[in-house]
């Protein structure tokens, strides 16, 4: 063994990393664009591809016939805000999953696992039952606005409790965070069960619908709430990416490598809950996007977070827009709750991951 001076060629090749990695972001952007175009054209009111430019206002000529006017109304007031909000919710959920997995050094971690989603769901269910009751009657007209706020507050409160339990004198124990999360999920589910038990038929239907997740309530306002969260999230992703990479060595060795591990954990935990809280407040509970997306991407582009986090946001957006398009077309004019679709696809993939891990463990 000799101390050889590395060749230029080899050090330049390093930039590429995995061969497929450099294509990932442009490819995912292209697929997201194509998915969005398909999502624009299908739905209760079909808009063929040929009419799309005119409906979007790109046609140039001003022959605004009745058909174009209808298309424009459907696109700009219903479909575009919905697709935008859906893409952002999917991106946020996938990013939250990827960060959580990096934090726990476990590909099966998910915000739903530590009760952040359940906390949000409990608060939302409480809001439904409360605003429908005698005491909350005065607030009933606010129900649409109150629901997302309650879900967000519930997610945030859950995180604060979790963080309080798992932190002691400035150190955060990831194992206790996870175990406390399991307990909090159980408590939140008991609360939801109780609400379901006391709810009347109409409230029950509202709660169920919300627990299954849906993008049908998406508006420009909601898209406007999501956009800054996504931008801040992207910035934070760039900030924590290297730390999450080193964390794979374990907390002590990440520290030896120069990572401020406590700060990394604080930022990650706050980010995951804020992002999950916002997403849950807009779409209800949507599972498995956070597990499946990062896992699939790791197989193709590798586990380095600098690429994994933005790629997760894009693939999460693609999957959610695809699933939502299916949700609003397969039983049209009715709508399938999107949570059913993501769970139906996500759960088998989750099982696949488990089986594959079992195979690896047997080696």
């Amino acid at each position, binding site marked *: *063994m*000799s*101390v*050889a*001076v*590395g*060749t230029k060629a*080899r*050090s*330049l090749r*390093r*930039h590429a*990393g*995995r061969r497929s990695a450099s294509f990932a972001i442009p490819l995912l952007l292209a697929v997201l664009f194509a998915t969005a175009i398909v999502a624009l054209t299908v739905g209760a009111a079909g808009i063929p591809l040929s009419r799309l430019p005119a409906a979007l206002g790109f046609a140039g000529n001003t022959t605004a016939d009745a058909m174009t006017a209808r298309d424009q109304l459907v696109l700009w007031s219903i479909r575009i805000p919905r697709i935008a909000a859906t893409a952002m919710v999917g991106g946020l959920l996938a990013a939250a999953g990827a960060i959580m997995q990096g934090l726990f*050094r*476990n*590909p099966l971690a998910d915000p739903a696992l530590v009760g952040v989603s359940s906390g949000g769901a409990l608060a939302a269910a409480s809001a439904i039952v409360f605003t429908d009751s005698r005491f909350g009657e005065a607030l009933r007209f606010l129900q649409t606005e109150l629901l997302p706020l309650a879900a967000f507050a519930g997610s945030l409160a859950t995180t604060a409790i979790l963080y309080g339990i798992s932190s002691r004198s400035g150190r955060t124990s990831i194992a206790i965070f996870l175990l406390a999360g399991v307990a909090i999920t159980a408590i939140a589910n008991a609360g939801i069960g109780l609400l379901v038990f006391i709810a009347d038929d109409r409230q029950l239907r509202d709660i169920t619908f919300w627990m299954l997740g849906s993008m049908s309530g998406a508006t420009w306002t909601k898209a406007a709430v999501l956009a800054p969260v996504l931008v801040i999230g992207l910035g934070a992703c760039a900030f924590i990416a*290297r730390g999450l*990479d*080193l964390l*794979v*060595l*374990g907390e*002590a*060795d990440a*520290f*030896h*490598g*120069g*990572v*401020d*591990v406590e700060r990394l954990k604080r930022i990650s935990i706050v980010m995951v809950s804020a992002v999950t809280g916002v997403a849950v407040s807009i779409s209800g509970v949507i599972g498995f996007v956070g597990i499946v997306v990062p896992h699939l991407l*790791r197989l193709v582009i*590798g*586990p*380095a977070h600098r690429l994994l986090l933005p790629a997760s946001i894009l693939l999460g957006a693609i999957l959610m827009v695809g699933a939502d398009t299916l949700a609003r077309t397969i039983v049209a004019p009715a709508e399938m709750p999107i949570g059913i679709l993501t769970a139906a696809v996500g759960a088998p993939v989750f099982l696949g991951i488990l089986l594959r891990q079992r195979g690896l463990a047997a080696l």
Partner: protein
Amino acid sequence: MSAVIEARGLVKRAGRATLLDGVGLTVAAGEMVAIIGPNGAGKSTLLRLLSGDLRPSEGEVRLKQRDIGSYTPRELAARRAMLSQHINVTFPFTVEEIVLMGAGERSPRDTGPLVDAALDEVGLSHFRERQLPTLSGGEQQRAHFARVLVQLACGEAEHGPGLLLLDEPTSSLDLRHQIDLVEAARRRASTGTAVIAILHDLNLAIRFADRLVVLSGGRLAADGPRAEVVTRERIRDIFEIDAVVHQADGVPYVLPQSMRAVPR
């Protein structure tokens, strides 16, 4: 030579147990020190205190004339590198990606030659694209050693001689790679790095270290040149085995005779 690290009166308690009790140690630039001692003697605790990972209950650690607690994690990483035992990487990072982690935020263009050199030095150049979890335990250990060497080299380029800490670095390596690793550490010492390694193989420790530090029951049992430290009596006292100590070219070597506790 100036002291790279100075520890004075280190006491570490965990609950009611005292893991370390009044240990002091100074290592100069260019010096290679081996820490030996039986299981539970406090060797790993001492190393974690010297790395800044743990804070002492009493006493102080000064790295390059500054209290070790006053450095940020990043400043610390540029002045000392540490190789732990048993690092379990769960995600499929490649060997090259792992080694590059040692370079921190520095541009890959600048650190590329360092990564290549470190991979050559641990004999893993042909595995650079392989995923780390698919390698054997010993190969993974060598990849982590390469990462630590890159971190050390990057830091020393900016701040001069640094500190290299090795916690049982040879535990999963075959004979050839044990010697390779210790020789690589030795080379760092010859260019000014202060090296502290926990070694269980007494002969390896004797062969490569300038100084041996013996811990026993959380206390410093001996600290000095190999010929003074390694005696039949001390080995019996510390390790509770009977051993013959021979000399070859003035270097002692130890041949254990009986693995059972020897009544005194």
